[in-house]
């Protein structure tokens, strides 16, 4: 057990990967609960794709990828918020169009370069094992900023999620609140995409919140469960991919192993939740005395 869970993290690069995963899990775990409440799974996925042209332009121009992703992320959050407000055009359709236009623009830009395939692959699937200290600092900075904004606007965001009409009537600007949420999701994508790739980012934005929702209906506990589940699966996924790659000769990509761990955790939680609900629904007479009196 010790060998499986501790030994992989003796190397500095594995430690850095672990720190990055844990910071991202804390960040994305919290945000995923808001994504769930506001049904923003599609927006999150759209943002992972729309950020691509920014990275592509920065890559071709030789500028900082981080800045490119940041600009494209915030711009697309703005466009997405605006697009979901246009009358006569369905939200989902607007998102689909934006995804197609932005992502293909990115591919067209990158395809003018010779190292096309490798770059695309790195962007989509990340390189978490080569994360350096500067990237961890950037991720941590974004995480702190996002968490502070969420702390300040939590009450308004929850009100907007559950009762938009009342929020509007009370004088809150729902457009501004929507912009805040979409901007925060974009920041999470920017923080994660270079290190862990779009695949892991979208998983971190959706699955922890879904797991938490199966366990609790209250927002506080949901946030705790989501962060815990994301962090634990990140840790186990890294350890599993290390073990498989080094000792069993099966090369498992670290980022995707983490996502598969998250998905498995979701399936297990869903199965357990179903069992518990069935147990509770049984008539009192057929339960053991202790359960009936509880």
């Amino acid at each position, binding site marked *: 057990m010790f060998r499986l869970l501790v030994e992989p993290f003796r190397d500095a690069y594995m430690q850095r990967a672990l720190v990055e995963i844990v910071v991202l899990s804390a960040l994305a775990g919290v945000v995923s609960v808001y994504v*769930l409440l506001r*049904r923003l*799974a*599609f927006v*999150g*996925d759209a943002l992972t*794709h729309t950020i691509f042209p920014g990275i592509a332009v920065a890559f071709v121009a030789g500028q900082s990828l981080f800045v490119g992703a940041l600009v494209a992320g915030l711009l697309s959050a703005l466009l997405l918020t605006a697009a979901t407000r246009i009358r006569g*055009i*369905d939200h*989902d*359709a607007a*998102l*689909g*169009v934006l*995804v*197609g*236009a932005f*992502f*293909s*623009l990115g*591919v*067209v830009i*990158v*395809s*003018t370069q010779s190292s*096309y*395939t*490798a770059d*695309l*692959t790195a962007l*989509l*699937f990340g390189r978490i094992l080569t994360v350096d200290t500067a990237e961890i600092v950037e991720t941590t900075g974004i995480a702190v900023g996002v968490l502070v904004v969420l702390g300040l606007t939590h009450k308004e965001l929850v009100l907007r999620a559950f009762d938009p009409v009342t929020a509007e009537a009370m004088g809150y600007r729902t457009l501004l609140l929507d912009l805040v949420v979409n901007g925060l999701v974009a920041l999470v994508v920017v923080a994660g995409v270079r290190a862990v790739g779009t*695949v*892991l980012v*979208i*998983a971190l*934005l*959706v*699955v922890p*919140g*879904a797991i938490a*929702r*199966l366990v609790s209906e209250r927002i506080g506990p949901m946030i705790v469960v989501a962060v815990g589940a994301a962090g634990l699966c990140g840790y186990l996924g890294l350890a599993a991919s290390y073990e498989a790659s080094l000792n069993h000769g*099966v*090369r*498992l*990509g670290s*980022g*995707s*192993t983490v*996502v*598969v761990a*998250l*998905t498995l955790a*979701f399936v297990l939680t*869903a199965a357990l*939740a*179903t069992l518990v609900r069935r147990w509770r629904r049984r008539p009192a007479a057929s339960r053991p005395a202790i359960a009936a009196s509880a």
Partner: protein
Amino acid sequence: MRVLDQLSSPLIRRALLEAVLVGALCGAVGVHVLLRRLPFFTLALSHATFPGVVLAGILGVSVYLGGAVAALGLVLAVATIGSTRRLEASTATGVALAGAFALGVLLQSAQSSATRNLAGFLVGDILTVNAGDLAMTALFGLVVVVALAAFHKELVLSAFDAIGARAAGYSASRLDVLVLAIVALTVVTSIRAVGTILSVALLVTPALAARQWTTSIGRMMVLGAAFGAVAGVAGIAASAQWDVAGGSAIALAASGLLAVTVAIQQARSLPRRLGFT
């Protein structure tokens, strides 16, 4: 136009034909995707075909077969997760999407020739389309068009008035499955041309452009197919002209068509909005 000079090359001719077929098919099916608000599901479907395509590559079987099996798996997974009631449809779709895509990457990374065909699967590789692919596209397209024509009335009725359709004796769940199967088949068909990620662009954008011109579903489908085909030709021409990725150029051309459409509509309604009429 470099594409005109290259017309003698069978490579370009096949790519053009494939682009027109896939564009027209996606444009027509896209109208139903919009009617039933399925764009997110389509995106999930396109991501989920990825593990199937990779697995098919590893096992050496048909890419279409692998994609179709994976798409079927996704439909089942979304239905199962969605039936737990505590999670609504978009979350269920998101979970299934992330899991399926990661599975594809994992399968790919376990392969020794890791990044070999990855970009091709993801963003398409239309210039390498062969006669077999073309025949497959034509066959799938024919099946989809026949299904759409045969069930047109039922599909439109159940999209606009699900309760009315049920009252009229149609099985709503069977029609849902039919639509999902049609969309899945279309996504699988377009893998070779535009890849797993960008098929959503062709399934949404031309249809949305068509919807700005007409309210009749039948005309919208014809117009959507025409827009899709035009985007296909324009994309291949742009790809030949500036040497950029073909599948993405097609998706971008579709976006351009939509932008032009919206601009024209805005200009036409300008006098009315300014109070001239």
